[in-house]
């Protein structure tokens, strides 16, 4: 097992290196960090611009391969270089990963748990009113783009707060920097409510559809009948035997969704003004920030591979048939 894990880790490191290198090459050839300095009033002398860009390893006059080698050597020692205006990519990334994790962790978990529960319920009640309501609601939510849904939520909250006369639920930002201690904590939680609802609604809709199908596959199987034949109440048989088995395929979806969402929740982060990884990807592209784009791509690749590993672990934990062979 240890040997297998080591081999798998080595494979993943190679894959991440390839993905990040390709991203860097693409960003370095197509982006123009010089533009940010050229358009200034009063104009900055070209030699100054060159010198500045050289210190950040962003100068397009340096051959691409040389810039790449410098960047790669830095990444190998854990230094992702400088942003277009000289900030540390490492610091920025560390902060933003924290933001994204705080934002997404609750939302994804809530979305998965509720989605699975609703999906299982609608499978058990197939073609009954409750199944139809869940189905129509899921498809409606899935049909609305995230940015529309998030904006609608924000607008609704804003009008509610106005009607109440005080801010019941925060609709923008991550926290209020003027508060401290417990108040700060509560304020952070308050800020989390709206983005969590927006994120989990989509997840609930998605998982409920998947789980309904998985559950329907399992419901007609003999072992559910066996469980009832030995005297288990229907509800126990459905939860302990049917749902437990039907969870195995959903675990894979869950792991991958979580991995890709870390850099993919762009709209949610933008609309609720949380400065996370997804927002950074868009911002850095806009700002011609080569090193930041490369860093986000590397992080995304690492997330996908970690998700694949997580899904294997989850499936192995849930399914003894995989574990033994």
């Amino acid at each position, binding site marked *: 097992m240890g040997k297998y894990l080591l081999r798998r880790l080595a494979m993943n490191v190679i894959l991440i290196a390839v993905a990040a290198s390709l991203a860097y090459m693409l960003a370095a050839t197509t982006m123009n960090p010089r533009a940010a300095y050229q358009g200034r009033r009063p104009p900055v002398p070209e030699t100054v611009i060159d010198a500045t860009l050289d210190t950040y390893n962003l100068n397009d006059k340096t051959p691409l391969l040389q810039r790449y080698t410098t960047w790669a050597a830095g990444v190998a020692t854990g230094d992702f270089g400088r942003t277009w205006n000289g900030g540390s990519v490492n610091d920025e990334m560390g902060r933003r990963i924290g933001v994204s994790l705080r934002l997404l962790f609750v939302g994804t978990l809530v979305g998965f748990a509720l989605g699975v529960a609703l999906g299982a319920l609608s499978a058990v009640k197939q073609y009954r009113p409750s199944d139809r309501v869940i189905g129509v609601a899921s498809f409606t939510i899935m049909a609305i783009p995230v940015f529309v849904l998030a904006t609608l939520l924000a607008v609704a909250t804003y009008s509610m707060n106005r009607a109440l006369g005080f801010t019941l639920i925060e609709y923008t930002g991550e926290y209020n920097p003027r508060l401290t201690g417990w108040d700060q904590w509560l304020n952070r939680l308050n800020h989390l409510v709206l983005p969590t609802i927006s994120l989990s609604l989509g997840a609930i809709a998605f998982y409920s559809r998947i789980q309904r199908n998985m559950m329907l596959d399992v419901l007609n199987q*003999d072992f559910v009948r066996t469980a009832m034949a030995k005297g288990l109440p229907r509800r126990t048989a459905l939860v302990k035997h049917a749902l437990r088995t039907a969870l*195995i395929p959903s675990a894979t979806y869950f792991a991958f969704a979580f991995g890709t969402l870390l850099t993919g929740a762009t709209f949610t982060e933008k609309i609720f003004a949380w400065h996370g990884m997804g927002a950074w990807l868009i911002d850095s592209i806009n700002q011609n920030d080569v090193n930041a784009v490369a860093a986000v791509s590397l992080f995304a690749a690492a997330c996908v591979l970690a998700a694949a590993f997580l899904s294997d672990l989850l499936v192995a934990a849930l399914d003894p048939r995989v574990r033994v062979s």
Partner: protein
Amino acid sequence: MSILQVRDLTVTFPGGVQAVRGVSYEVSRGEVLGIVGESGSGKSVTSLAVMGLLPPGAVVSGSVTLHGRELIGVQEDELTRVRGKSISMIFQDPLSAFTPVYTIGAQIAEAVRVHQKTGKDKAAKRAVELLDLVGIPHPDARARAFPHEFSGGMRQRAMIAMAIANDPDLLICDEPTTALDVTIQAQVLEVLKTAQRETGAGIVMITHDLGVIAGMADRVLVMYAGRPVEQGPVDELYYRPRMPYTMGLLASIPRVDGAEGPLVPIEGNPPSPAALPPGCPFAPRCPMRIDVCDEEEPPLTAVGGGRHVACVRSREIEHKALTGADVYPLPVIPPSGAVRVPRERRATVLELTDLVRHYPLMKGAVFKRRVGTVHAVDGVSFDIAEGETLALVGESGCGKTTTLQQIMRLEPPQSGHVVVLGQDSARLGKAERKALRGDLQIVFQDPMAALDPRMPVGDVIAEPLRAHGRRNVAARVAELLELVGLSPEHAERYPQQFSGGQRQRIGIARALALEPRLLVLDEPVSALDVSIQAGIINLLEELKNTLGLSYLFVAHDLAVVRHLADRVAVMYLGRIAEIGAVENVYDRPAHPYTQALLSAIPLPDPERERARRRILLQGDPPSPADPPSGCRFRTRCPKFARLGEAERRRCVNEEPSVVRLANATGERPDHGAACHYAEEIEVIPASDDQEEK
């Protein structure tokens, strides 16, 4: 005192389809009631209705009383107290009947804890005891194994252990051995008898296998189209059936102890429960039908001696002592011209010499590596003469199918030779191989899966013709359809519009399209109901004789083999254990494995079945990835167990090869066995008509 009483039970599914239309029976303590019927006769639905396990939407009426307490219409929680406690159920397919994610021990312990207030440890201990009771070796270790780590027979034992966990009063077994091999079936039936002794429970045994019922049941209920048509004590019903359906059923089964000659087929198909004919539902297929039969469905009436029959002519049948052979028209099959020529002088159509097929055993999901070799076929030799049927028999995993695939591929084998119609498969060019395929065709096991559902039957049959560049196929298709007993108009229809038996006829027509000389039949009748099976067997026999075909026939049902084959080769773990003319191998089997196999087949004859002594094999066949040294059968061999130390050494060190037996004389001196200590014995009691000869 009866435990269970069922009165006028009816089950209606959504859409108004009546699957069960008035079933009544009762079961007493320690009694075994057999319920026989073909698929769709409502036998399984009846038992699910008793358990209250039918899918929501099914409407049940009538009465089911357990110890006098009504079960129909009571609250769900009252039913859960009964299920698994007073009534337990054993299902057909033991693989899907266990939840894959929990250990066997945990699932049995769960059954204990639902009904008894015991701690987790105690329930787990009880599970181990139960596994021990049903004969699972190392029960404490096996209790921690998952269902997929158990073999089919072991799973069915565990299923029985779970069913008797709470000492039930009634066991309902729904086709408990249908998915198992015969030697494993014999073991499981023994376990069921043990379970019954331990619990004193009554048993409802549902099956289509009249042999299993003959040996187990005290009373039998025959179902047809959702209703019982005959009921009575097992001996009475088997020896003096009074309803034409029962008579036909008993006459249509090929028997391992039976005489040769055509089987008695029941014409037509069982009616669909959605479109029952007026009057007696069996009337359209009945050879004794009179006008009254179409007017009204005859009720099940008592005729004395605990017997009930639903037939207007039952008195007459009893009076004249009619049997199935008397009332059903016996088809006439023209004799074969080839068999008159002695076997040595006939051409050889297929010859296998030391055929080997090994598969690498791989491990790992991302990085595959070879961890061993599966010896699927390990040195098999036999030949088939023109106009002959050779049957390849053996239990699942013995290499029958792999052997077939190696022949059908027409590619050079890993080792050994495959010679088809005088041409060595290793030396074939591309064009020769294609031409040879026309002479070598196959009929598959599952007639539904073998036909493309989106292709009209005419195209299905025409496909091989077109593939070989024939033009004007329509006339040939019509001819082929008539040859297999269908009509030319059927060419326009799609496979799903046909019944299982008709689909198999279409499969045969397709195989015959190119006028092959050798037909490979892969379990051609095992997916069919008994009454349909007889018609297909007769058809195959007739085609062989009229068209001069040779068959390689793969089967696990030894009774069918006895009926259809001239020679038989018994396979065990990739090698041939015994080979010879059917009458030699069946009447005087010399290999201990053949003896066990033959003795495991239940006879549809209650008295003889009860009087028989079985040679029970221990355990499951070893894995073909790790066959035992020397003789592969020695680990389960009853003879090996009786040998002395010095004699055993030969079995362990030296692999036996097939040797012609010294006293194989008579009409066909064709009998060989791969056993160092081969000894011919008789394991099937001779049937009456053979004694008369």
